[in-house]
């Protein structure tokens, strides 16, 4: 583990009460390795290590800790601070009905997350309305309608020959009529470099003015996480992130990469395939996971 590796390095340097430039350099080399192995983006690692470096120099080592443990403590605190510190819940203020647009790459877990959010929000006293706006993927509409059915939750009756923009606009009208106060829009997976499909999202955003635009990202995403998150954020202005498939053994460095490049809050994590598998995001737990 990182703690063991750092302790081994710092063993030779025992007897110092401070973290010095030299022992920090050696320790940070191990931290950098750990973060890269955890899939944190190369440039994000570089910036992060520099930040920790500045914080660590001249720091007193607490009596109860080895220098290695002291360095990890600083790293862990920095990671936690970077990934947390923002409002985590859905933004219910300002509009009625509240609308939440889920976007992201193919297969990241948007449709399943839409179902999970609906269940979670009903548990908090909301009246959710599910909107299948993916007309491209075979049986995508059926997939969300099946989830809605299982939850005994209303869903807009989309059909594949409708345009996604029309689906969303009509769904908002219907939601107002039926007093559904939280509209959850499931969009088709798309590449951040597909300008036509990214424009489609811009069109929906302009017409609906959603309360939330949430990037649904896979926890096992590698170095490309920064490109994806940056592009979606630049194009749309994300309001939050949901990280899925956290029930696996991916270290999840994508969380740090995405947070670093978008500065948007990670609101929830998906922790399974069932519809109750949605949890709040805990930055300190994520920090420990990333550090391994």
């Amino acid at each position, binding site marked *: 583990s990182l703690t063991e590796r750092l302790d081994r390095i710092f063993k030779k340097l025992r007897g110092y009460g401070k973290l010095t430039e030299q022992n920090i350099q050696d320790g940070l080399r191990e931290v950098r390795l750990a973060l*890269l192995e955890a899939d944190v983006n190369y440039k994000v690692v570089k910036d992060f290590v520099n930040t920790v470096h500045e914080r660590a120099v001249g720091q007193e080592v607490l009596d109860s800790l080895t220098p290695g443990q002291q360095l990890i403590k600083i790293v862990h605190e920095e990671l936690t601070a970077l990934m947390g510190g923002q409002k985590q819940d859905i933004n219910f203020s300002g509009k009625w009905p509240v609308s939440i647009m889920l976007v992201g*790459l193919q297969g990241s877990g948007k449709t399943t997350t839409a179902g999970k959010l609906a269940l979670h929000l009903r548990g908090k006293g909301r009246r959710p309305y599910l909107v299948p706006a993916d007309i491209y993927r075979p*049986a995508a509409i059926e*997939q969300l309608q*099946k989830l809605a059915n299982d939850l005994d939750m209303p869903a807009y009756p989309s059909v594949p020959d409708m345009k996604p923009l029309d689906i969303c606009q009509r769904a908002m009208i219907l939601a107002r009529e039926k007093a559904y106060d939280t509209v959850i829009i499931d969009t088709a997976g798309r590449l951040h470099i597909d300008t036509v499909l990214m424009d489609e999202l811009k069109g929906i955003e302009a017409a609906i003015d959603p309360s939330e635009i949430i990037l649904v990202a896979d926890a096992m995403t590698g170095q490309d996480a920064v490109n994806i998150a940056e592009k979606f954020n630049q194009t749309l202005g994300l309001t939050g992130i949901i990280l899925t498939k956290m029930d696996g*053994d991916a270290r999840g460095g994508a969380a740090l990469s995405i947070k670093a490049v978008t500065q948007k809050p990670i609101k929830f994590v998906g922790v399974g395939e069932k519809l109750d598998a949605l949890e709040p995001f805990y930055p300190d737990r994520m920090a420990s996971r990333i550090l391994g």
Partner: protein
Amino acid sequence: FLGKKEIDADLLDSLEEILITADLGVSTATELIERIREKVKRKELSDAFALKNYLREEILTLLRSPQKEGEEITASPFVILVIGVNGTGKTTTIGKLAHRFKGLGQNVMLVAADTFRAAAIEQLEIWSKRAGADLIKQKSGSDPSAVVYDALEAAQSRKTDVMIIDTAGRLHTKVNLMEELKKVQRVIQKKMPGAPHEILLVLDATTGQNAISQAKLFNSAVGITGMVLTKLDGTAKGGVVVGISNELKIPIRFIGIGEKMEDLREFDPDAFVSALFD
């Protein structure tokens, strides 16, 4: 190439960055850069151009080691089991494979053994219609092994040449789901000794180092005979397959380059390595 002629520390650093951001992983990237450093020390590499070629050759060697020629397909039906974690593109890849085999004049049967996920059977059914393949399915929630057994029965009478089995996405860390997969494999082996003839692991090119864990665990559970790397039409390079290919000796059979039926290509190591440096 990186605009430099001589080899210096900056060049080696930028090369390391390219390899790591391509998801080759720190240890593979470091090892490759170390080999270059040695060669430079021994004056065996003198300019950036020679260096790039050397690096390309080294990566190609890692990728080519397991690429033995595909076996002559004599079994009837030739049974392909498609596995992998959630959302990597298994069902879509099966549609593409069905289209490919139909184009070669084969009778193709698809087997809807994902009986768990919402609308999984409907999704595969649409692909079977698009590709002109037969489909074997049962009610959602039925035992995947039962569907597979049915299919193997039906394949005899329908003179199926190629059978492609779609399984539910599953995280490699879920013991009960991996046991379910092993059971599916045992049922196939018992019904048709020698089958499945190909076990394809479908990996998403955007996946980072976790792909190694996926490959290792699926390999120990049922054995993988080939990989498909999907979503290479994005900006991710899929470099993690270099380490997997080298360590587990598993060949990459195909790549997915889009969402349409035709968006499947045989794996071309040269093209793949060139793209790493784009």
